[in-house]
């Protein structure tokens, strides 16, 4: 439907069509003027010829009409028949004052002494006016025959104007043919011209379209040099924009990479701490074993201690391995994936004496990319821990709300600054300068999950939450 709308038509079609329509309109107007002038000139010319004919014939017929001489009148009409060029007489009739026919050039149709039929008589105007009946291709003119003041008869002439009508038709046909040819030529020229003028646009479109799959490539300078100045300027502006975009993309990628390393650093430090914690106990257990290993009860207890400590280390290592190695798209989200994060932030929290309140209501697998969800939540947790004062609490709540995963992290950090809100609302504007990279990463990933970061004010702090729709679950309108 939209393709049929004139707005959707290509310029290369619209412009020639407009030109052709304009020409057709112009041709119509000119044609009307020409035909009107032609008809008027033809009729004037014919009227002059008819008048000249009547001048000649009436001079010859007048004496015959006065004498009511049938033969003289007939002969005058007969002689005049072929004498006047450019005028085709259908019939010429001389009538007497009584209205009866004195003589006619076609005596069999209008016999001497007969009365002309009223419909025919009515077609002849008074005076020397020529009346044209274009449909019947006939002209009618009549003249009174007078001797002084006395009417002695009337000459009625019916003319064949088929030649005139044919000429008009020929002129009309010629006008239509010529104008149609001009319109088609102009339309073709318009089509060619517009195509030529719009050719740079297709080059630009190809370069812009390339940006959908990757970076936009600048238009080569060789190509630009061939374009008209307007398009050259446009292409150069495009190239500047493409370069700026590419630079920004590169910077964002670099920043994201750096953020990842920063995160890794933090994780590594947390990991070391988590591993170090049981290590003291493990060494003590090893000492105890070496000293009192003979005592089965002590050995039993110490080995259990050793196993627990090693299990703790294994859990921590496994959690960090998942975070560090996994790539997006490698599995559905499980409740443990959220719980693992607690281990990763525990060291940071404990360092500041922050108490973690953990509430995970998830059960079973969710059709969500676990790597991305974990990265978002980890970022939110680290941000909350960093923002909260020492000895305060940071709480996490994971649940399903209206078919969406909702993971909320509340802190006591005294609220979110305006720039941070802006970064969360508009991650597409690029990474912020001077901090907040974690929030920006979280917002970007939330978008990638089809969701967003919810920001709520909470007493004494703020509450940030990931809201991500679960594929396959009926999401209610939020």
């Amino acid at each position, binding site marked *: 439907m939209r393709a049929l709308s004139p707005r959707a038509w290509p310029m290369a079609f619209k412009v020639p069509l407009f030109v052709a329509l304009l020409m057709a309109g112009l041709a119509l107007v000119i044609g009307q003027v020409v035909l009107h002038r032609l008809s008027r000139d033809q009729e004037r010319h014919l009227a002059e010829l008819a008048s000249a004919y009547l001048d000649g014939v009436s001079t010859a017929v007048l004496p015959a009409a006065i004498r009511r*001489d*049938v*033969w003289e009148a*007939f*002969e005058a009409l*007969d002689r005049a028949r072929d004498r006047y060029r450019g005028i085709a007489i259908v019939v010429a009739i001389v009538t007497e004052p009584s209205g009866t026919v004195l*003589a006619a050039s076609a*005596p*069999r149709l209008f*016999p*001497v*002494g007969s009365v002309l039929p009223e419909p025919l008589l009515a077609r002849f105007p008074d005076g020397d006016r020529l009346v044209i009946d274009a449909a019947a291709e006939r002209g009618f003119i009549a003249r009174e025959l007078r001797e002084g003041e006395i009417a002695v008869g009337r000459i009625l002439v019916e003319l064949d104007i088929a030649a005139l009508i044919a000429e008009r038709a020929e002129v009309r046909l010629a006008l239509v043919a010529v104008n149609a040819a001009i319109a088609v030529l102009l339309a073709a020229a318009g089509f060619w011209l517009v195509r030529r003028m719009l050719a740079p646009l297709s080059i630009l479109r190809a370069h812009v379209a390339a940006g959908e799959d990757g970076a936009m490539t600048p238009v080569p300078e060789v190509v630009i040099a061939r374009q008209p100045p307007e398009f050259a300027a446009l292409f150069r502006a495009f190239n500047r924009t493409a370069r700026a975009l590419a630079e920004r993309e590169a910077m964002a990628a670099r920043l994201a990479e750096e953020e990842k390393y920063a995160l890794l650093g933090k994780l590594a430090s947390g990991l070391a701490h988590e591993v170090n914690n049981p290590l003291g106990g493990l060494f003590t257990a090893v000492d105890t074993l070496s000293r009192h290993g003979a005592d089965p009860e002590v050995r039993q207890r110490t080995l259990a201690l050793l196993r627990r400590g090693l299990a703790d280390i294994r859990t921590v290592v496994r959690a960090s391995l998942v975070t560090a190695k996994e790539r997006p798209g490698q599995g559905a989200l499980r409740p443990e994936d959220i719980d693992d994060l607690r281990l990763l932030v525990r060291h940071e929290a404990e360092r500041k004496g922050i108490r973690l309140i953990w509430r995970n209501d998830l059960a079973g697998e969710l059709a969500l990319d676990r790597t991305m969800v974990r990265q978002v939540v980890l970022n939110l947790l680290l941000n909350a821990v960093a923002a909260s004062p020492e000895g305060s609490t940071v709480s996490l709540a994971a649940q399903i709300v209206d078919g969406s995963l909702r993971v909320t992290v509340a802190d006591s950090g005294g609220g979110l600054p305006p720039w941070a809100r802006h970064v969360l609302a508009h991650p597409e504007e690029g990474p912020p300068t001077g901090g907040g990279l974690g929030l920006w990463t979280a917002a970007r990933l939330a978008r990638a999950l089809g969701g967003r970061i919810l920001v709520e004010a909470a007493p004494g702090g703020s509450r940030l939450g990931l809201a991500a729709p679960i594929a396959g679950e009926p999401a209610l309108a939020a």
Partner: protein
Amino acid sequence: MRRRDVSRRAVVTALPMVVLGGRAAAREPLRLGLTPVFLDSDLALLRALEAYLGRATGFAPELVKRRTYQEITALLLAGRLDAAWICGYPFVEHADRLALVAVPLHRGSPLYRSYLIVPADSGAERLEDLRGTTHAFSDPASNSGYLVTRHRLLLDGERPETFFARSFFTFGHRNVIRAVAAGLADGGSVDGYVWEVMARREPAIAGATRVLEASEWFGFPPIAALAAQRRSPAVEALARALVAMPQDPLGREILAVLDLDGFVPGEPILYAGIAAMRERLRAEG
């Protein structure tokens, strides 16, 4: 073909006259009146006739034409013409003052007839069928073109004015044929000789008509002169030239066009039939 021959010959033979122009003024004129009893509309023929007469008579011929018979007759009677080719009717009308100069021979005899003609597609079969129609006459002073038909109607107790719805004169036999051919008239009275010549020379016109009735034979329209001038040198020269026409090449050409065999001196008795008709009509008033 013949016409062209005549006109070319006419030009050739007329040349000496032009050359002798100075002396031509000194030559006595020969004034000959012509009426439409023959095809006087053929100008080439008239030139040839003038050329022949100029050479054969030694006079300077002057061919005089008028619209009606009456005008020529009046000129002749007034002595303004040496002779005139008139109809038998005016000849008998003025028989006391006129004398014959020569009478044409048509198909071997000095006689001709009057034809009653109608359009070729007319349904008329006899004169009675023309009652109440439009009729074309040649000339009120014409025997074949008026008198004969008037007399014919008289025998039936009719008069042209009442028998025909209307009638008109065309002042020429050729015009009568044209009027009937065009349908201007439903019938016409015409010189039979002229009709025959027309049928040969202008079949497109004469062919559009057909002969309804032919009259009895009458004396052919003669060349006449005032009786008082019949013996004048000009008239005598004319009479000789006419009779001698078949002996001259140009004369023969002219005769061929006219479909005549020649001219004979003739006798007034030839016109007794016309005179009788005239008498009867006069008696009826």
